[in-house]
């Protein structure tokens, strides 16, 4: 195992200077993610227009992998609608868990997360923010549909 695969420059940079860090108040959707294994906590704030992510920010304390993943995610999903997020969510899941998944160029900086799969104990750190955003969007959709 190669530490440089895990702690790539992009990861270290987004850990040191997380993008879109902070709150959005008021927001249309928010959700808290918690990794009980390491105590990481993360809160996502999302502003939606129809089902498009207009703005997204996050707060929390976590390891380098979870912080960088959240930071990279907020950059990647801004402007995406629900369908496009779902598609990306699926690709990230493959990237983090499947040994033979090849990151294609369209993933951009998110491809840096592919090093995590060599470190099974850390996959949850990288996926926490993605599950949390998925939950936030699902809940918001559920609220809309019941009204």
């Amino acid at each position, binding site marked *: 195992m190669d*530490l440089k695969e*895990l702690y790539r420059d992009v990861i270290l940079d987004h850990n040191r200077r997380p993008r879109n860090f902070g709150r959005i108040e008021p927001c249309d959707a928010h959700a808290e993610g918690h990794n009980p*294994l390491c105590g*990481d906590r993360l809160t996502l704030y999302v502003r939606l227009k129809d089902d498009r992510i207009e703005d997204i920010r996050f707060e929390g304390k976590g390891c380098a992998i979870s912080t960088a993943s959240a930071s990279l995610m907020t950059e990647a999903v801004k402007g995406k609608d629900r369908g496009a997020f779902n598609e990306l969510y699926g690709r990230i899941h493959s990237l983090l868990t499947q040994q033979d998944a090849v990151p294609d160029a369209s993933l951009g900086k998110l491809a840096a997360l592919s090093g995590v799969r060599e470190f099974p104990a850390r996959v949850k750190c990288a996926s926490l923010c993605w599950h949390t955003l998925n939950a936030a969007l699902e809940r918001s959709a559920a609220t809309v549909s019941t009204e």
Partner: protein
Amino acid sequence: MAVTADRIAPAPALDVERVRRDFPILERTINGRPLVYLDSAASSQRPLPVLRAVERYETHCHSNVHRGVHALSQAATEAFEGARERVRRFINAQSRTEVIFVRGTTEGINLVAQSYARPRLGPGDEILITGLEHHANIVPWQMVRDQTGCTLKVAPINRRGEVELDGFLAMLSPRTRLVAIAHVSNALGTVLPVKRMTDAAHAHGAVVLVDGAQAIPHSAVDVRALGCDFYAFSGHKLYGPTGIGVLYGREELLAAMPPWQGGGDMILTVSFEKTTYNELPYKFEAGTPNISGAVGLAAAMDYVESLGLEAIAAHEQRLLALATGELERIPGIEIIGTAPHKAAVLSFTMAGVHPHDLGTILDSEGVAVRTGHHCAMPVMTFFEIPATARASFGCYNTEADVAALIAALSKAREVFA
């Protein structure tokens, strides 16, 4: 001269290189590096005498205990009851009936919570614990609180990670029915003044349970000298197998407690109308027990006594002092838990590097430490940190292990420079 000097030495020093040869797992490499195992507080490794005792039992003696008249059943019963007597001697209990085999410390505490506390406590009664307890010595009492309406109180700790003794004493009153305290903090290493706390609790008429999970591998435990009413510990932190542990209880208390679980072995007679329960200790051992685990635990007790508990403790204290000194010299490292009286547990944080990242980087260098909240989330909350890295030492660790830890920490600093 050397011979004379050896003879008058108070406790023979541990021959660590010889000890290491007893632990085959230490020959493993991790990520191409020799294993540096600094996670004995989570679970210690097992020496050959323990592995062999379990193998010998499984290959020659196994059957069910307390059942048949055939030879193997008798051999298994002798092995299991022999292990109970071994435990009795190890902790200096008065009688073998005071030694209940359980799965581990957690089960021992839950047994006391459900069988001693739950039937006796009600609104107005108090259970007192401390701010440095493991979840296993918090959650069972919260369950009893919710079941009975009693109150759960928590004695404060200070920035060194010690229980505030004055605060603890001030919280004792005639309403205090049960006091449950760690002997050694798993997250901080602090050794608690258990004898003094027990005496004070007894003066108010309270019963005292000691969570001995972290104390049992680091010092000789004499339950009668401590004076506690219950003492729980696990085999796997004492170089024994997992899934076996001990609840010691004073006979008078155990005898008055209802059984915890029902089933085979814990009964004398059963009809559909009425069941009469077995005598101690079987009343609390429903179902087929972990026989090979008990055999392994007894072998582990033989093993640590052959090395000498004092010699082990002295060796670990040298490593703790060495590692503490080295860590204090590294900028950005903060040691969490700085009580003057500690067991060989060293919790720390490194500025700018999350403990989880530290754990991964150390692992890449072959150094195994525990990272996280150590099942002591209230301790993390008190120190306002999400987690720590924790290095813990056992009889097989060396100065070279400490050096490997320090080198791996420099590597972490490099990665996150």
